[in-house]
């Protein structure tokens, strides 16, 4: 048959077909070895484990192909076929040059996952590295790969492979932490949608060329037995759940489940969160760190706060501050807020939402949440919207006047406070356009205030809801006040 026909027949097949064709007869073997053939795969992933090496090839119009080389007593197993006295690593590296030879003219994705523990890595990686190096060096041309992903324990592992990739084709490089193998595919799923990072320089890639994971929203929900990360990238919403398990940690990613033996769920969560946050370069629309089912402050202090402190460590060690538009978290005290807020980039920060972790306890609480310490932060000064929910504030609202919109719970409201607000919002140049107080516990001089406001009354709705419109002589600004006594709610808004 003519070469053109043979190239097609072999090109439509996978690597396994290619190996089989080579075994059919000498003529075919000679043809395959001496002709420029391509297997049309779109992605090639190599996974190295202590007792197994696997290769997965993906295709556009045929099923994925997996070839596994397993270690077994007195030899190895390739797919399910045993081979006596053949080492599985040797067998793999005997086939690898052929696989590399028949790559398509531009391979869209090449990945190497090294699934070793730190101890195993010392034992296995040098041999793998030596063999890889020899295969790649023996090639006459560099590998035409568009996207390259690998995890590494040391920089020299990256340098075994990366210099053999043709820079003419290379658009994306992903170098991940050695222990992040579990998350690689998750990140890639996100990345397919959002990442278009071009890399031209091999030097300094580990620090400088870390691509942007491009998440738009992250919610971290912490409970005593599990932690969830909900993350959105583009239109895609995902959930990662780290669950305490008798044998270690159970990780659920959307519909997939992995059991990681002898892993502590909090440690694993923190490791992967660090990877997420280190890869996040663009601004998150929203970051929520909340606790679920916290019974009391003591449990918060024992369960939630230590994790918050570790998240603080991750944020602190990040090269650039995390960019967030709106941050939202649970706290009993300002000290809890101080674990996270100072490490957020103040420039893009527009909204701060702080709420009590348990609504039921909050109703009984008489504690005052003093914002004094927070008000010195650049993040506080930079934000435009503030909501502090179910936490009692003092009536001193001077630290709130630079916000555009405020929603807070003030323990005791009074005629004096409202006069102060009226004065600030009507007569002075302030940014404040809406100030909403909800769930106050006491209203001092309530009757006096209501009588004084009678002159501005516009109408009265059901349930005692009153609306006042205030316009002072010689002032352009007008203030609308809505008073809902049933809900202990009062709103001042400029109109």
């Amino acid at each position, binding site marked *: *048959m*003519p070469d*053109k*026909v*043979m*190239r*097609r*027949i*072999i*090109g*439509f*097949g996978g690597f396994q*077909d290619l190996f*089989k*064709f080579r*075994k*059919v*007869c*000498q*003529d*075919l073997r000679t*043809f395959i070895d001496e002709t420029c053939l*391509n297997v*049309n795969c*779109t992605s090639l992933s190599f996974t190295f484990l202590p007792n197994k090496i696997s290769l997965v090839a993906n295709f*556009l*119009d045929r099923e994925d192909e997996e070839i596994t080389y397993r270690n077994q007593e007195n030899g190895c197993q390739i797919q399910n076929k045993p081979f006596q006295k053949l080492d599985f690593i040797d067998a793999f590296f005997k086939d690898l040059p052929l696989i590399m030879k028949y790559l398509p*003219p531009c391979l869209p994705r090449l990945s190497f996952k090294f699934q070793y523990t730190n101890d195993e890595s010392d034992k296995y990686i040098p041999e793998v590295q030596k063999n890889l190096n020899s295969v790649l060096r023996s090639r006459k041309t560099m590998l035409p790969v568009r996207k390259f992903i690998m995890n590494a324990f040391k920089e020299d592992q990256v340098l075994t492979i990366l210099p053999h990739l043709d820079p003419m084709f290379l658009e994306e490089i992903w170098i991940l932490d050695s222990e992040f193998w579990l998350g690689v595919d998750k990140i890639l799923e996100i990345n397919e949608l959002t990442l278009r990072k071009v890399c031209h320089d091999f030097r300094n890639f580990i620090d400088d060329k870390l691509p942007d994971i491009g998440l738009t929203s992250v919610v971290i929900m912490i409970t005593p037995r599990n932690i969830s990360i909900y993350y959105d990238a583009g239109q895609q919403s995902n959930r990662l759940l780290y669950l305490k398990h008798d044998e270690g940690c159970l990780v659920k990613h959307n519909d997939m489940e992995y059991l990681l033996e002898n892993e502590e769920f909090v440690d694993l969560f923190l490791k992967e969160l660090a990877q997420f946050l280190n890869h996040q370069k663009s601004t998150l629309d929203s970051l929520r760190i909340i606790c679920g089912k916290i019974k009391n402050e003591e449990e918060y202090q024992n369960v939630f706060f230590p994790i918050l402190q570790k998240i603080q460590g991750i944020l602190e060690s990040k090269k650039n501050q995390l960019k967030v538009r709106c941050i939202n978290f649970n706290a009993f005290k300002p000290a809890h807020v101080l674990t996270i807020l100072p490490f957020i980039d103040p420039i893009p920060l527009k909204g701060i939402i702080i709420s009590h972790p348990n609504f039921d306890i909050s109703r009984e609480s008489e504690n005052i949440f003093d914002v004094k310490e927070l008000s010195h932060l650049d993040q506080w000064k930079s934000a435009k919207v503030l909501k502090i929910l179910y936490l009692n504030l003092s009536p001193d609202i001077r630290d709130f006047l630079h916000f555009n919109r405020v929603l807070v719970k003030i323990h005791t409201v009074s005629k004096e406070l409202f006069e102060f607000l009226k004065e600030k919002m009507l007569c002075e140049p302030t940014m404040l356009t809406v100030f909403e107080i909800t769930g106050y516990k006491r209203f001092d001089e309530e009757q006096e205030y209501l009588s004084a406001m009678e002159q501005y009354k516009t109408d009265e709705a059901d349930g005692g809801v009153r609306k006042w419109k205030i316009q002072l002589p010689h002032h352009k600004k007008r203030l609308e006040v809505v008073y809902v006594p049933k809900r202990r709610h009062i709103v001042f808004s400029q109109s």
Partner: protein
Amino acid sequence: MSVENAPVVDVDEAAIPVEKKMYYRFESNDKKEFRVSELAIQQSETLNRLVEAMGYTSEDVENKPAIAIENIDGKTLKLVFQWCEHHKGEAIPVDDGSVPKIVEIPEFDAKLMDIDNGLLFKLIWAADYLNIVQLLNVSCKKVANMAQGKTPAQLRRVYLLPSDEEDEAAKRAAQEAQDPRAREVEEEFEERKRQGGNSFF
């Protein structure tokens, strides 16, 4: 005369003769004749160039002998022209030498290629010879699919190939055979191989 000053001529559209749909006649090496539409022929780069070079009119097509395709038999040529007629007018993929990334086999093509291996291999050979790119793509894809899940020994049976040992034995036998009759047999074997007779590859 400039273009602007050229006289305007009214065209009577009804007076323009409508060209009749042309059907060319082809003959296989076993003297079977086929009539194929001009549009279907466009699927074959080789035949299209040939008929363009011949410049036949409708009368020529009827009066002159059928165009002989000497190295394809009637059974194969029938399949080739059935395929061309079914896919006439469809876009012809550009053959830049690379293997297409996606090739789907349409239902019609799958039925057409539901034939024994010997005939399928002749069809591929004909598609390549006549340069019918998409027919070559789908038929090669079919053969590639046939290899899935088969062992090298099964592939030998499917593709009618000798094993290394058989090949070696045949070569040895040929070397040992010194008499003119043995050489004749050897040459005949080689000729059949060249024509895609017994062995697929």
